[in-house]
C-alpha cells in the first residue's frame, strides 16, 4: 500500500505546483482590489518565455526568471489599461487571456516539438530518507520547495506585516487608504506585477520542468482553475494550497485508477479534478460570514484618486 501511495503523492505535489504559484499570485492581486482574469494568458506567456530561454541558455533557472519576467510584462499591459487608463477590469482580463493564448502560440511556433532533458529532482539531504514523507515531501524539484516558501511569505506578508495590512486596506477601501496618504494606484501596480510574475513562474514550471515541452495552449485551463481556487478558497492562502493539491491529486489518481483497471469512462475521470476541487472548496468555505470577511470589498472596481 505504502509503495503504491508514494508515487501518487509525489505526482500530486508535482501536478499541483503550477496552481500554487498562479493562485497565490492572483490572491495577492485580488487582495489589493484588482481582479485580473488574465491568469491563463500570463501563464502561457511565462511558459513560452521560460521554455525559449531554457533552450537558448541551457539553464532552467534562467528559464524560470524569463517566465517570471514575461508574466510580469503581460500583467503590466493589464495594469496600464485598468489602473492608469481605468478600463474595465473584467473585460481587460478576459482580453489578456485570449491575447496571451494567441501571442504564446505565435512566438512558440519554432519551439513546437523541441524537447528539453527532464531536470533531476533535488533531495534534501537527511530529510529525503525518511520513509513515506521523505520521498514525497523532500525529494522534489527545487521549484516545489520554492512554492512552499512563497506560501509562507504570502501568508506572513498579508497577515503579519504592515505593508500587507496596507495592501488589504487598499483592497477594502481605496478611498480611505488614499485619504490617509497611501498611493493606491502604486500599490495596485506592484500587486498586479507580482501576480503576473507568479503566474509566469507557474507557466515556466509546466514547460521547463513538468512536461518538459512546449505545446500551444499547454496550460490547458490551469489559469482558470487558479482563479476559481482563489474565490472558492475565500481568499485564504491555506485553502488555496489545499485546493491546488486536491486538483493535482485527483488528476493523478484518475490515471492510477485506470492503470489499475477501473472500468469508469475515461471522459468522466478526466472531468473529475475540476468537479472535485470546486465541490470540496465550496463545502469547506460555505459560511457566508467568513466569505464576507475575507472577500476584498472593492474587488474589480476601478479607482481614481479624484473620485
Amino acid at each position: 500500500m505504502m509503495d503504491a501511495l508514494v508515487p501518487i503523492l509525489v505526482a500530486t505535489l508535482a501536478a499541483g505546483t503550477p496552481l500554487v504559484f498562479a493562485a497565490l499570485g492572483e490572491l495577492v492581486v485580488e487582495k489589493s482590489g484588482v481582479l485580473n482574469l488574465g491568469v491563463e494568458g500570463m501563464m502561457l506567456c511565462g511558459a513560452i518565455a521560460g521554455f525559449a530561454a531554457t533552450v537558448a541558455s541551457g539553464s532552467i533557472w534562467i528559464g524560470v526568471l524569463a517566465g517570471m519576467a514575461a508574466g510580469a510584462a503581460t500583467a503590466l499591459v493589464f495594469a496600464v489599461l485598468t489602473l492608469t487608463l481605468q478600463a474595465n477590469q473584467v473585460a481587460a482580463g478576459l482580453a489578456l487571456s485570449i491575447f496571451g493564448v494567441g501571442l504564446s502560440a505565435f512566438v512558440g511556433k519554432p519551439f513546437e516539438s523541441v524537447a528539453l532533458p527532464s531536470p533531476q529532482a533535488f533531495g534534501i539531504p537527511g530529510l529525503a530518507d525518511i520513509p513515506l514523507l521523505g520521498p514525497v515531501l523532500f525529494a522534489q524539484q527545487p521549484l516545489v520547495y520554492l512554492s512552499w516558501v512563497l506560501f509562507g511569505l504570502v501568508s506572513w506578508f498579508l497577515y503579519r506585516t504592515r505593508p500587507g495590512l496596507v495592501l488589504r486596506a487598499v483592497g477594502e477601501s481605496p478611498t480611505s487608504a488614499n485619504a490617509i496618504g497611501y498611493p493606491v494606484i502604486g500599490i495596485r501596480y506592484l500587486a498586479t506585477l507580482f501576480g503576473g510574475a507568479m503566474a509566469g513562474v507557474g507557466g515556466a514550471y509546466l514547460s521547463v520542468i513538468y512536461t518538459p515541452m512546449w505545446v500551444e495552449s499547454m496550460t490547458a485551463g490551469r489559469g482558470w482553475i487558479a482563479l476559481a481556487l482563489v474565490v472558492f478558497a475565500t481568499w485564504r492562502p491555506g485553502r488555496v494550497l489545499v485546493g491546488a493539491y486536491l486538483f493535482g491529486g485527483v488528476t493523478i489518481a484518475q490515471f492510477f485508477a485506470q492503470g489499475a483497471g477501473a472500468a469508469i469512462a475515461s471522459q468522466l475521470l478526466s472531468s473529475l479534478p475540476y468537479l472535485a476541487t470546486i465541490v470540496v472548496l465550496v463545502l469547506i468555505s460555505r459560511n457566508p460570514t467568513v466569505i464576507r470577511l475575507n472577500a476584498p470589498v472593492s474587488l474589480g472596481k476601478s479607482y481614481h484618486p479624484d473620485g
Partner: protein
Amino acid sequence: MFKKGWGATLLGAAAALALVGSAIAQQPLKIAFVYVSPVGDAGWTYQHDLGRKAIEKQFGNKIATKYVENVPEGADAERVIRELAASGHTLVFTTSFGYMNPTIKVAKAFPKVHFEHSTGYKRDKNVGTYNARFYEGRYLAGIVAGKMSKSGVAGYVAAFPIPEVLQGINAFTRGMQSVSPKGQVRVIWVNSWYDPGREREAAMTLISQGADVLMQHTDSTAPVQAAEEKGVYAIGYHSDMSKYGPKAHLTASTHDWSGFYAKMVGDALAGKAQPSNVWGGIKEGMVKMAPMNAAVPKDVRDMVAKAEADIAAGKLHPFAGPVKDQSGKERVPAGKSMPDDQLAVMDYYVEGVQGQLPKK
C-alpha cells in the same frame, strides 16, 4: 470619354483573363495537404509531411505542394479545405479522421477537385480514403516488448477507445503473448491525441505500476522521454523517436505514405486519378519498423524480421484464430483470420489486456 475609357479597360481585362487562362494550363499541378498538428520533427503529421517532401522531390516542377498545419477538426477544417479547393488545388489530402465530414461536404461543392481522406470510411465520386494497417507494426512491437520486458508488464498510453486504437492494443498484446504467454498489457486513456502533460503523467503512472516497456498511441514524445528518465524501455509510434530516448527507445512502429502519394500524383498527372480505397500494411511498405536499439539482441531482431516477412507474405496474421476477447468469448475460430470488416469495428480487449474497457 468616360465610357470609352471603361470599354478599353474591360477589353484589356478580358485579354488579361485569356492570358491567365492559357498560363494555368501549363502551370504545375497544385496539391494541398491539411494537417491536424504542427509538422514538428516526429509524429503523425511529420510522417505525412515526409510523404509530401518525397513527391516534391520526385515530381519536381511538375507539381506545387502546399500544406496548412494545426487545423482543428470541425468548422475550421471545413473553411480551410474549402479555401484550398477554391484556390485551384486539384488534389487535396486531408490527413485526420475528424476531417471526414468536412471533406465530404466540401467535395460536393467542388466536383472537379479530387480529395483523399486519411483513416476515414466515407467515400464519394471525388473522395477516396487511404489508411494503413498500423496493427501489423503493433504486433511486431509486441514481440520486441515481450522479449525485452523483465516484469512481464507492458504499459500502453492510448488516446481514444476507437477501433483503430483497439486494433493496436490487441495486436500488441497478441504479439507480446506470442513470445511471452504470461505477458500483460495495462492501458491508460488520456482522451487526447496530443497532450504531452497528460501523456507523461500516464506514462509515469504505468511505470510506477510495474510496466517496464511502454507503448503509445498518442502523438507526442513524452512517453519515450518519461521512460528514458525512469530507466525503462519504450517503443515509439508514428516516427522514429530514438533521439528523445537514446537508451529507452527500442524501436518504433512507423508509417510511410510516400509510395501512396507518389502513385496518386502520378495518376493525377496522367489524368487518370480515381478515388482510392486503400488499406495497406507491411506488404505495401506503408508500415515499417524503425531501426532497433543496440540493446535488442540478435535473436529478437531475427524473430521480428521473420514475423515481418511472414506478415508481408500473408503467412502470419496478427488476428489469426483462435482470437478470444477478455470474457473468453471466441471472436475468430481457429484456422481463420479476422476479416477486414470485423477489424474495422473492433470494440473489445483481447485476452491479456488488464482492466476493462471503459463503457461508452
